[in-house]
């Protein structure tokens, strides 16, 4: 047998109650600054991006060519300081067509969707590569398995950042 629960009155709050100062809130905005040490592996990765090259490390045990490069293989748990250059081409492993900005606001009329993609880099082990952005492609033309190539910033504009590659674009 069901009996409806009686909810007693009460008054709902509105945004106006807050803005008019009827409801007290404590405002603060947090101010924090960090400078993260990149360490050996990420530092070299970024330095090589500045040079317009992609560098990986090879695990001496499982032989995986790992991207991003790391000083140890997290699966074999052995040091991996064998550095190898890989290509700036690869294939799309997966992608998404994003109609929202980072803060969840919708993209404007005529604005192109953001196109994040995981790219398996040629020369790195299967399933390893770079998470980056796609461009110079119509969203409805993108396919998993599509071959792409890095479009680099001009040398003078590179800073040692993942953004030294502007985006990846389809080739062929």
């Amino acid at each position, binding site marked *: 047998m069901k009996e409806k629960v009686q909810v007693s009155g009460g008054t709902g709050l509105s945004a106006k109650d807050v803005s008019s100062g009827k409801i007290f809130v404590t405002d603060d905005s947090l101010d924090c600054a960090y400078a993260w040490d990149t360490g050996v*592996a990420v530092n070299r990765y970024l330095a090589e991006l500045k040079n317009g090259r992609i560098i990986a490390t090879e695990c001496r045990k499982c032989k995986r060519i790992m991207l991003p490069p790391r000083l140890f293989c*997290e699966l074999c748990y052995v040091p991996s300081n064998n550095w190898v250059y890989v290509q700036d081409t690869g294939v799309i492993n997966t992608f998404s067509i994003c109609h929202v900005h980072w803060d969840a606001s919708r993209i404007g009329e005529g604005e192109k969707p953001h196109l994040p993609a995981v790219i398996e880099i040629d020369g790195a082990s299967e399933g390893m590569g770079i998470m980056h952005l796609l461009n110079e492609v119509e969203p409805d033309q993108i396919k998993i398995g599509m071959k792409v190539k890095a479009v680099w910033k001009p040398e003078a504009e590179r800073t040692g950042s993942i953004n030294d590659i502007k985006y990846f674009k389809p080739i062929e």
Partner: protein
Amino acid sequence: MSKKVAIVGIGYSGFRTTSTDVSYREMIYEAATKCYEDAGGIHPQSIDSFVASSEDFMEGISIADEYVPDQLGAVLKPVQSIAGDSLQGLASALMQIKTGQFDVVAASAFSKISNLSSYENVLSYATDPAYIRPFQENPYFIAGLEMNRYLYETGTSREQCAKVVIKNRYNALKNPTAIYGAKIDMDDILNAPPLCKPLGEFDKSGHLDGAIVLLLASEDKARELTDHPIWITGLGWATDTPNLDSRTDTLGSARYAELAAQKAYSMAGINTPYNEIDFAEIDDTFSYKELQHIEALKLCGPGEAGELLDLGSFAPAGDLPVNVSGGSLGVGYLHEANGLHRVLETVLQLRGEAGPRQLPGVETGLAFAWRGVPTTTGTAIILSNKS
């Protein structure tokens, strides 16, 4: 205690004021590799579970626990993060083994405090937004309030607090991992610039980067992995109310420490701590804290710590050596890794591996960590080399 658990491996990396040459991943990898080698060369695939302690604000990464697995060898393994001092993380690792579901569990923590350029802000964001933050005071004022009340209630002198600094920084001269070791005298401390009086510049510990990884195992596994297991015989922790203006006791006491120790002592079957504990590593984030904590941990009567310090009881050659390592004042402060640092030093002593600072014939040690201002959280652990 039901199932016996031992610390079977220790590893650390650091300790130094900056560590720009390595990432936190590389620093923890070094500490973990040393720890696993210390535990008979165990491969992390044979470790059942991993517990990391961290505070996202310190690291500048929210949900930082997701960045734990790689460097510990914990990919696709049970991983848990504790937002608290690493001795609370160790408590969690201990409990996992006591459930009987896990035999070998790693506990890790690190500090990259040098990467945080607004430490005071982070500390300030830990204070209550309605009651405390609007005053815009440096949170060390809380240590000033506590110290003043502690001195008032116990009759302990400003000079006795300074003697803690002298002792610990001198002890640190014999610890190769300590970077704040120094031979300083009373005038240096009393004439130092005041911070939040009565607290002065020398009364607080300095920041440190570093990583610590410890490996815990059930009795059978412990005997397989090492010839020198250090048994965890008791552990307890407690948190007081955060209210500065209505603590359950007073700002001069440390009830959290008393209750944490009570639990740890009762688990370990310790009735007279002063007689049964051979040495202690006790939080000395601030000078007065060491004395306040010694009293709360019932290693002496209320208000007696200062006098016993004068008599040399807490010196390396005294009846109850406290912070032979140099403590946080001498070694430096490792933030959330602080608790594991206390345990690390206690384990080294109990193994007889403490080098020039080794105490003779020690069997039972106490480690106690506090989570720093503005917290009221403390964890106590009893360790023994006798099974």
